[in-house]
C-alpha cells in the first residue's frame, strides 16, 4: 500500500526506546520506523505492552529512555513544545470511541475545529459532514453518541481523529468488541482511508485477520521478553520470522512448558 514516491519520508522513529510507568520500563529496546503513508500495526499478545507503547506515542505517557520522534519532534528530549507539536500532528481513535457524550456526532467532529477558530461556522459544518461521509455516518450526524452502535461510535471517532488533518492517525484496538463482519468492514475502511488520504495509520491490534488485511508492516512485541520480537510485513514474518512470531501469526499456542513469546 505504499503508493507515492513521497512515502519514503519517515514520520515515526523509535530508537532504543524504553516505555513504562513511573520510570519502570515495561518494554525496552524498541527500534522501528514508520514511513509516511504506511499502515503500521503494533501487534502482540495480551499484556505485552501495546497500549503502553501507543500511549507513549500519543504523548499521554512520557517515554522512559531512548528516542521517540513523531512527525519530526522527539518526545524524550523535546519537552512541552514537542508534546504540543506532536498533538497537532496526530489524531487518535480510542478503543471505546471516547466520543463526548454531551455532543452530537457532528459536534464531536467539529469540536477541535471550533476551538482552533480558523474556519467559519458553515465551513466547519461542511468539513465535518465530509469527514462523516468518509466513514459512512453522514446520515447519523445529528444523533447523540449513545444512540449509535459500538461500531458506528468507533467510525465516528475515526472521523473525529481525522478532523484536524493529522499526519498520523492512531487506532487503538479497532476490532475490540465488534463482530467479525463489522470488524472486517472496519478494516476495509481503514485501508480505503489510508489509500485515499495518504495519511499514516498506526493500528494497535492482536486480531490476526485485521493484521493480514491492513498492515503494510508490523512490529510484534513480546511480553515475556519485554521487547520487540520482530518487524516486517505480516507475510514475511509468517514465512520467515522468529519461531515465536510465526506461532503468534499462525495462531498456535506456545508449547506446554515454555512461557512463550507474544504473551
Amino acid at each position, binding site marked *: 500500500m505504499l503508493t507515492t514516491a513521497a512515502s519514503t519520508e519517515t514520520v515515526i522513529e523509535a530508537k532504543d526506546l524504553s516505555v513504562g510507568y513511573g520510570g519502570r520500563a515495561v518494554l525496552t529496546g524498541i527500534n522501528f520506523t514508520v514511513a509516511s503513508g504506511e499502515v503500521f500495526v503494533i501487534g502482540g499478545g495480551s499484556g505485552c505492552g501495546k497500549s503502553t507503547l501507543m500511549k507513549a506515542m*500519543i*504523548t*499521554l505517557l512520557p517515554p522512559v529512555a531512548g528516542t521517540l520522534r513523531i512527525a519530526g519532534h522527539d518526545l524524550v528530549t523535546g519537552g512541552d513544545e514537542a508534546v*504540543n507539536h506532536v*498533538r*497537532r500532528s*496526530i*489524531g*487518535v481513535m*480510542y*478503543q*471505546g470511541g*471516547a*466520543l*463526548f*457524550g*454531551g455532543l452530537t456526532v457532528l459536534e464531536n467532529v467539529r*469540536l*477541535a475545529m471550533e*476551538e482552533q477558530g480558523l474556519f467559519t461556522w458553515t465551513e466547519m459544518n461542511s468539513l465535518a459532514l465530509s469527514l462523516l461521509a468518509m466513514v459512512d455516518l453522514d446520515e447519523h450526524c445529528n444523533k447523540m453518541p449513545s444512540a449509535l452502535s459500538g461500531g458506528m461510535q468507533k467510525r465516528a471517532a475515526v472521523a473525529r481523529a481525522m478532523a*484536524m488533518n493529522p499526519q498520523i492517525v492512531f487506532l487503538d484496538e479497532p476490532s475490540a468488541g465488534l463482530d467479525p463482519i463489522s470488524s472486517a468492514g472496519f478494516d476495509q475502511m481503514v485501508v480505503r482511508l489510508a489509500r485515499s488520504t495518504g495519511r499514516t495509520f498506526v493500528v494497535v491490534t492482536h486480531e490476526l485477520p485485521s493484521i493480514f488485511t491492513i498492515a503494510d508492516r508490523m512490529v510484534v512485541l513480546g511480553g515475556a521478553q519485554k521487547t520487540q520480537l520482530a518487524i516486517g510485513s505480516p507475510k514475511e514474518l509468517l514465512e520467515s520470522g522468529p519461531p515465536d512470531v510465526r506461532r503468534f501469526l499462525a495462531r498456535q499456542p506456545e508449547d*506446554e512448558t515454555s512461557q512463550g513469546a507474544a504473551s
Partner: protein
Amino acid sequence: MSPDVQTSAGTTVIALEGELDDVRVRGVWEDVVGRARAAGTGSVVVDATKLSEVGGTGLLLLAEIRRTVVWAGGTIEMRGLTADQASLVERAVGHKPPEPREEDSHFVSDVGETALKALDELADTVRFIGAAATDLVHAIRHPRSLRWRDLLRVMGQSGIDSIPVTCMLSGIVGFIIAYQMMPALDRYGAADQTPTIMGFAIIRELGPLITAIILAGRSGSAFAAEIGTMKVTEEVNALTTMGLNPERFLVTPRVLAVAITTPLLSIFASFAGVLGGWLPMIARDMSLELYLQSVRNSIDQVDFLQGVFKAFVFAIVIGGIGCRSGLKTQVGPGAVGASTTRAVVAGIVAIIVLDGVLVGLFHALGI
C-alpha cells in the same frame, strides 16, 4: 487427622493421607505451610502416595507448599502425584508467597506515611484550586474561550434546581435555632433580641454554610462523577491529545457556574432561614414586618456581603475539589464511586475548616 511431619538430617517429610477435601485443607493449611517455611533452605519431601483423593483446594495446598519452599531457597520433592497433578502444582512457582502477617505491619511508619500523603494531597488540592481560580479570571477576560453550553447547564443544575431544597433546609434550621434560643434568652428577659441573633447567625454563617453543604452533595459529587466517567471512557485523554486542555475545558465552566450561582443561592437560603426564625415568634405576637425590621436593624451591609463572599469562596473550593477528584479517577469498576464520595467528604470538610479560618481572618481584619 493431622498430617504426619518428621524432620531428620535437614529433610522435612510431610506425609499426607486420606482425603484432602476443602474442610481438611482449611484445617491443615497453616500448619503444613508453616512447617514448609520453617524448613528454610533445607529439603522438603511431600509424600502424597497415601492420599486417596485430591480436590481443587488440595492441589492449591500442594502448590503453596511448593511455592513456599522454592522461594525460601529450599528443594522439594513430591511423591505420589499423577503427571497432570504434578504439572499443575509445578506451575505455581511464579510468584513469591505472601509474607507471614505480623511482618508487614509497622504502625508508626504507617501513620507517618499516611500523614505525609495527606499533606501532599492537601498541597496538591490547594494548587489545583488556585489554578482553577486563575483560569476563571482568564475565562472572564476571554469570554469566547468559554464553553457556554456547559456553563449554562451547570448553572441550571447547581442554581435553579437547588433552590427548593436549599431554602427548605435553611428555613428549618432557622426555625430550630430561633425555637431553641428563646428559652435561653427568656431567662434574661431578652427574647425580643431573637431577630438580632437570627440576623447574625443565618446571614453571616448558616445561610452560606448550608448552601455550600448542599452544593457539595449535589454539584461537587456530580462534577466528580461526570469528569470521572469521562476519565474512565478516555474522553479526558481524547481532549488532551486533541490539544484541548481538560482543566480549562471541563473545570473552568463548572467552577465558574457554581461561583455565579452559589452566592445568589446563599441569599435565598439566608432569607428562608430568617423567615424560618420568625415562625416561633408568631407565638410571641411579633408581626413579620416588625421581625424583619429588627433583623434589618441588627446587621449592616458588611455582614451581608461577608455571607455572600463566603458563599463565593465555598463555591470555588467545592467546585475545584469535585473536578479534581473526577480528574484523579483511577481505573476499575469502583473508581467513579470512590471519586464521588471523596469529592463530597473532602468538600464538606474543606468548607467547614475554611469557615473557621475565614472567621479568624474577618476578626483580624476587624469586620
